[in-house]
């Protein structure tokens, strides 16, 4: 009985986290389309509900009622597993995101490594989908995305090392608290820019959306998917984007902490600040989508390996030497 009550408590907590995440994923899709439209002087989805807020729900209903088509020559088990893997990985990562000093589902010692590991597993959903479809375009998309995500993970990892050097702990709450006096975006600004661009590449957002490049690959790895399975890929992708924004907010923008540590601002709960910071980063993501053209594949690889990796590695040396020379290394 005791176990059961613990289990119920945890399930309640998980639902309390997951339902808002899923709802905000639906909202964020709407926001993305709206921002995109406004940049191009269009209206965007504005018919369903007030300001078109319910557009994503209408889309979801449409997807649910569409037929799921499984190609006869596909590898059926892996074909069905792929969107499930994408969705699950996008959601389990939220377990370690701290919404305030105490509001975190799992306050583990290696929180940032967990986030990094889960985001690096995200590539499997895409590879599995692309391979199991047994079709040329999805396969090409999967191969592209595998190479792309592995490349940009490297620079994200090195950027995380930069932040960890200043913090001295892998716990996400410690990372947030270490930014009490100054957000890391100020001393590590170049790293923030590189992190932002790598996050775009890691989540297959434009200008790095080569895995799905609709003009050449007819939507890449998700060509053969339809109905709810396609919607799951889609939701997983946006949940991943939100996660990357949350990661950026925690690593560089002070997480759940208020920007100014004075009375009226500290009253606002940490979750609100975190959400505002995630929204800020997400609007940047959406603007980038509207503004820049797609990269060519060799340029993408060059940017990842020949520009970002040396730059972020050099910055690790710089940060480490600075901290060592001025005796600022967090030692305990």
């Amino acid at each position, binding site marked *: 009985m005791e*176990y059961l009550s613990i289990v119920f408590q945890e399930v309640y907590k998980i639902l309390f986290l997951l339902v808002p995440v899923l709802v905000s994923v639906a909202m964020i899709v709407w926001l993305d389309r709206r921002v995109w439209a406004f940049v191009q002087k269009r209206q965007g989805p504005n018919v369903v509900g007030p300001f078109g807020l319910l557009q994503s729900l209408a889309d979801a209903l449409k997807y649910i009622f569409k037929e799921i088509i499984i190609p006869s020559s596909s590898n059926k088990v*892996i074909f069905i597993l792929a969107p499930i893997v994408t969705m699950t990985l996008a959601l389990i990562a939220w377990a370690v995101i701290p919404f305030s000093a105490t509001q975190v589902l799992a306050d*583990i*010692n*290696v929180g940032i*490594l*967990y986030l*990094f*590991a889960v985001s*690096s*597993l995200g*590539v*499997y959903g895409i*590879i*599995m989908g692309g*391979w199991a479809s047994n079709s040329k375009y999805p*396969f090409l998309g*999967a*191969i592209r995305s*595998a*190479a792309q*995500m*592995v490349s940009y*993970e490297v620079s994200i*990892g090195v950027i995380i090392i930069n932040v960890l050097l200043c913090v001295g702990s*892998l716990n996400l709450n410690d990372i947030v608290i270490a930014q009490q006096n100054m957000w890391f975006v100020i001393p590590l600004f170049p790293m923030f820019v590189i992190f932002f661009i790598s996050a775009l590449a890691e989540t297959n957002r434009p200008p790095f959306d080569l895995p799905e490049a609709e003009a050449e690959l007819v939507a890449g790895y998700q060509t053969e998917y339809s109905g709810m399975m396609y919607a799951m890929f889609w939701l997983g992708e946006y949940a991943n984007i939100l996660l990357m924004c949350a990661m950026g907010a925690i690593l560089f923008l002070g997480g759940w902490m208020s920007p100014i540590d004075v009375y009226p601002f500290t009253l606002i709960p940490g979750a609100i600040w975190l959400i505002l910071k995630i929204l800020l980063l997400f609007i940047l993501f959406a603007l980038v989508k509207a503004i820049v053209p797609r990269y060519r594949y*060799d*340029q993408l690889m*060059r940017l990842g390996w020949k520009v970002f990796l040396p730059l972020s590695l050099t910055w690790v040396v710089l940060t480490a030497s600075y901290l060592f020379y001025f005796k600022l290394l967090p030692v*305990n």
Partner: protein
Amino acid sequence: MIAHAIFFYTFSIIAVVSAIMVTASKNTVHSVFFLILDFISISCLFIMIGAEFLGMIMLIVYVGAVAVLFLFVVMMLNVAQQKNQWFAGEQSSRHIPVGLIISTLIFFEIIIVIGGWKYKPEIFDINNSIAQTSISNTHSLGQILYTDYIHVFQISGMILLVAMVGAIVLTFRQRSGLKRQSYIKQISRERAEGVEVLEVQSNKGVKIDD
């Protein structure tokens, strides 16, 4: 304790079964997927014994990078439909004795190590500094790895680097007649170099590319 046991047996059964399936499955790509499942369940086991850093690094390095490359290669080589004939093919039967010898050797090595560890723990000179419980295991790992074992650590890094350079040297070949793109050149092109406005007389045409 019961919950702990349940989780332990779940993960270890998944690990063992998927390890068997790596060799037993007919489809090479399936083998790689089972290998990934094996890595994941072993990293879960690492986390269960409190080595959360090792578990996460296992996930990041093996599952996030190494297995992706495995998958990449296996998919590109198009060996997906190759049939794994168990002890049947004439060609493959020559490798069986060698494989058997090596696997028995490894099996006995494991038995010796585990048996010694279980019944004669004093043989293994375990440094006392490992068992510091006051700091997190990431800290203690770093404190040991970068102080007492720094040379071993550096040498292993060097070996990896040599392997990487070796692989590049082996596969690198100089190809002539390649047209390389220079970004600087492409960006710094002016309109005057690329575009020319000509008056074309009718029925005469104009010669380009000379």
